């Protein structure tokens, strides 16, 4: 199915961080001051793959909870990360996220479940 066909069968939607948090039962660990919206997402535990993405302002869904996930987001202009599979964000990760204005969420849902819910609600895949 190409992108045009996808558009026909699914609603597309930009979502606020609070809406995303509600849908995937997530805690907002680092919030932002602006009213940012997310419209597309990418899920990976491999940061090397994330670093090859050309799109900006993407939501990253990952189960890799370390400071390099935050650094990867910083370099890639990703401004929102969901840590799935009940992975916890440590103080150092919080510090780097706050410094770079990256929103961080934690959910107990798996990467698959998180992705499935957000896809169904209209968040677009990058490819």
């Amino acid at each position, binding site marked *: 199915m190409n992108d045009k066909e996808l558009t026909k069968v699914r609603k597309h939607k930009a979502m606020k961080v609070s809406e995303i948090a509600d849908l995937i039962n997530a805690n907002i660990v680092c919030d932002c001051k602006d009213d940012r919206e997310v419209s597309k997402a990418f899920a990976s535990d491999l*940061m090397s793959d994330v670093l090859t993405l050309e799109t900006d302002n993407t939501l990253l869904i990952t189960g890799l909870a370390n400071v390099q996930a935050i650094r990867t987001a910083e370099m890639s202009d990703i401004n929102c990360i969901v840590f799935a599979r009940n992975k916890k964000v440590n103080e150092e990760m919080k510090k780097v996220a706050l410094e770079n204005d990256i929103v961080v969420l934690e959910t107990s849902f798996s990467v698959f479940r998180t992705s499935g819910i957000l896809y169904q609600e209209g968040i677009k895949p990058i490819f």
Partner: protein
Amino acid sequence: MEFEYEITGGDFSRAGFASSHLKKILKQINIEPRLIKKIVIALYEAEVNIVAHAFEGRIKVSIEPDRIIMDVTDKGPGIEDIDRAMEDGYSTASEEVREMGFGAGMGLSNIKNNSDDLEINSTVDEGTELRIVKRFK
């Protein structure tokens, strides 16, 4: 403008420090965001390579009016076969590096994709030198 950074091999908690600092500088001097992203991704990949493979390294960044030059040198095992190392998917990274979300054999080719010029010189058991150049236009 010139900056230098020291990188310690194996210290994953600090990998990205140099790239993060450079990103802030490039923003301050109003480089276009798309270019900044390419520059810092190339440097970040190089930083992760030092941390993942070498004992220690040094990054020297020179910002000229029309381009940026990043010289990344390390003392470490060196690269035996540079052509193979440039291939996607070829990696000698340890299990620990893979657990950090890297080591998939994509770093060097991603540096090349995000730069205008990439020179690699390496001597086995001594170390590796990268010169990464990105033009501002």
